[in-house]
């Protein structure tokens, strides 16, 4: 059988037995779920038993791609990692979420497909440190003793030297020392600059899997290349003609924008080449000269300076660089350093707890020493490495309710951007989504930025938001449920925003490219044209969006089996308090408000959740998909499998 867009195979690797097998891709699944997250969840369904320890050999890592990944479509480097993540998601023991989470890359996914595999399913645990080599038919579990202990950049460099392509680099996924030492908020990096699998570094580490290398020359064929290129060219021209178009991510205005511009040294981008966003910055002079960081949200230095009260931006660069090299989540590391340091200052933690460290608030060397304790799992660092809830238990304080030391936490995940830090993430005119704050709460893996939600541009009117909704493929009936003449329902809009962006991601296109500055990319009819020309499959635009809906429902079913319900979609209590930030620029009261600037109460937020579940066809009290909804989506078989476990 000839495959178009898809590579047509799934690679199964059992690290315990060394068994490797290649199976054809089930095209019925591809029809129903497109790619990455949806097919990945179905593959997980076959191998994942309920209530297993995410760090046990029984857990599986499913790396997935979509049919347009590795083409010339702007932003077409989006892959997925579907697994049971390692961060404790509840105060109850052994409760961990299962999620399909996206990550970027410019070589990893593209080379995986070119090697001939749409998905890689990894189970078991290798007896010794290993890496997986995937080069066309040459698939091998290789010794990684020479890589173990190396930081992510060094290990990636060694692997690229070992496995050189004919015309360029191989693709890499690499974990750092934090993942090796099972720090539960560790992650992996693809192609050096794209963080992959926040909270999955330890899952790979527990499998003794240091890295994956991908390389191949089988080619990604299009069903109708001429039509595909016509459809593509039309959109590329439209993007280039857009007044806001710039090929690289903007650094913003003001002090932060100037700092990022002054320290800029390089930028990397994903396939399709119209939207590079992974910038690299280096300190040019002063005591931190030469310190650099890259591949992350460019606002991170300012955020880390503010949160940790660090005066010198160079010190923030140094800290970020260290976190990246170790393969630690920047957000959780930063928030946890802040939390623990403030508790130490308050006397809740003793010098003995801290392993003798002397308290130096705002001192980067103090924070670096504390980070070292996390990565090496020493003293308080060993407790921090277990995640927020075990740490809460140790200190007897919940950071999500104790403002003085706290941050917003949902399902064990600290939210990178506090919804109150800008006037409001729910509010018009901030350049952020009215849905984002809500999306952070309802997703299986609480999202930390913009992922899979509706993201608005600056200062949109209600009619412009409505126009976006139309471009996302909402029917007239749905539009009428979401919008009134002068307002809209955040909970209901979130359902459709999440599905539209997940559909893009499942196809292999970055949702950031869709909503960031390329307004023309938010165009479901065009997406259908591109998908259809690439795959030769006749699926209507509406059916494409249905795939996005199926993905949300299947992910939810997995987590219902693990015991998650509406009560886990917890609005962080801290969101109802005033935010007092230490920067002068952020003085004044800062409450969570709606689109129109009205302060939101708990009842308002719970009302948004009610509307979200209702629009989804989920039980409003429990947040569980109803039988009618599952039947409508054709998910009865999956529901039965997940019910019986």
């Amino acid at each position, binding site marked *: 059988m000839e495959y178009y867009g898809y590579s047509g195979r799934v690679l199964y690797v059992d690290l315990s037995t060394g068994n490797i097998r290649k199976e054809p891709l089930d095209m019925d699944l591809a029809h129903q779920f497109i790619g990455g997250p949806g097919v990945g969840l179905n593959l997980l369904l076959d191998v994942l038993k309920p209530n297993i320890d995410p760090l046990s050999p029984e857990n599986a890592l499913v790396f997935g791609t979509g049919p347009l990944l590795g083409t010339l479509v702007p932003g077409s480097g989006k892959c997925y990692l579907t697994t049971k993540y390692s961060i404790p998601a509840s105060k109850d023991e052994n409760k961990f979420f299962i999620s399909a989470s996206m990550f970027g890359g410019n070589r990893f996914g593209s080379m995986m497909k070119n090697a001939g595999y749409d998905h890689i399913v990894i189970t078991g645990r290798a007896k010794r440190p290993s890496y997986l080599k995937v080069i066309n038919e040459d698939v091998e579990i290789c010794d990684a003793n020479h890589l173990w202990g190396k930081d992510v950049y060094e290990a990636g460099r060694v692997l690229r030297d070992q496995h050189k392509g004919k015309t360029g680099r191989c693709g890499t996924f690499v974990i750092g020392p934090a993942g090796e030492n099972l720090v539960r908020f560790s992650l992996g990096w693809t192609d050096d600059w794209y963080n992959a699998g926040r909270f999955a570094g330890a899952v790979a580490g527990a499998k003794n899997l240091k890295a994956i290398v991908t390389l191949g020359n089988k080619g990604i064929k*299009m069903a109708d290349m001429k039509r595909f290129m016509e459809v593509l060219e039309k959109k590329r021209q439209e993007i280039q003609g857009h007044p806001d178009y710039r090929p690289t991510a903007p650094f913003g205005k003001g002090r932060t924008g100037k700092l990022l511009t002054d320290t800029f040294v390089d930028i990397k981008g994903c396939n399709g080449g119209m939207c590079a966003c992974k910038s690299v910055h280096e300190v040019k002079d002063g005591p931190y000269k030469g310190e650099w960081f890259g591949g992350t949200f460019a606002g991170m230095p300012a955020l880390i300076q503010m949160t940790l009260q660090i005066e010198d931006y160079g010190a923030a660069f140094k800290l970020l660089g260290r976190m990246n090299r170790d393969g630690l989540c920047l957000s959780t590391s930063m928030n946890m350093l802040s939390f623990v340091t403030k508790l130490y200052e308050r006397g809740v933690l003793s010098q003995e707890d801290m392993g003798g460290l002397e308290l130096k608030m705002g001192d980067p060397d103090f924070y670096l020493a504390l980070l070292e304790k996390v990565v090496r799992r020493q003293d308080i660092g060993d407790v921090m490495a277990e995640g927020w809830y075990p740490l809460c238990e140790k200190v007897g304080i919940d950071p999500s309710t104790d403002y003085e030391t706290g941050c917003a936490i949902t399902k064990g995940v600290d939210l990178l951007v506090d919804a109150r830090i800008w006037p409001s993430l729910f509010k018009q005119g901030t350049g952020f989504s009215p849905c984002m704050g809500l999306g952070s709460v309802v997703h299986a893996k609480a999202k930390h930025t913009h992922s899979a939600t509706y993201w608005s541009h600056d200062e949109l009117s209600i009619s412009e938001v409505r126009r976006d909704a139309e471009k996302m493929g909402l029917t007239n009936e749905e539009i009428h449920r979401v919008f009134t003449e002068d307002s809209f329902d955040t909970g209901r809009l979130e359902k459709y925003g999440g599905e539209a962006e997940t559909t893009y991601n499942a196809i292999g296109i970055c949702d950031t490219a869709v909503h960031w500055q390329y307004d023309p990319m938010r165009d479901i009819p065009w997406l259908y044209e591109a998908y259809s020309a690439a795959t030769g499959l006749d699926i209507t635009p509406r059916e494409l969006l249905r795939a996005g809906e199926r993905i949300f429902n299947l992910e939810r079913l997995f987590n219902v089996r693990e015991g998650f319900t509406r009560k886990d979609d917890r609005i962080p209590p801290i969101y109802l308090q005033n935010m007092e930030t230490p920067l002068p620029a952020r003085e004044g009261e800062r409450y969570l408000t709606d689109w129109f600037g009205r302060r939101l109460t708990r009842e308002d937020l719970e009302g948004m959740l009610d509307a979200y579940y209702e629009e989804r066809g989920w039980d409003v009290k429990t947040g569980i998909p109803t039988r009618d909804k599952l039947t409508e989506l054709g998910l009865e078989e999956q529901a039965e499998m997940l019910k019986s476990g």
Partner: protein
Amino acid sequence: MEKNNITVTPEKCTECMSCQLICSMTYAGAFNPEEARIIVNPPQSIGFTDECKEECILCTRYCKFDAITRVKEE
């Protein structure tokens, strides 16, 4: 100058692979960077294989970052 009428500046390359994607699509019939006629190893080098046609400038059209540019004729 790595090739007639094309200038390469490897340090500007973002590794988006657009040049290799358009090249392989045109000459190998699929998106297949390993079969492209342009070799991308930034920041050290960007080069061309022997099969690369002197008159072809497709890669310059798809590079948005000025890593591969066409020398303007006087």
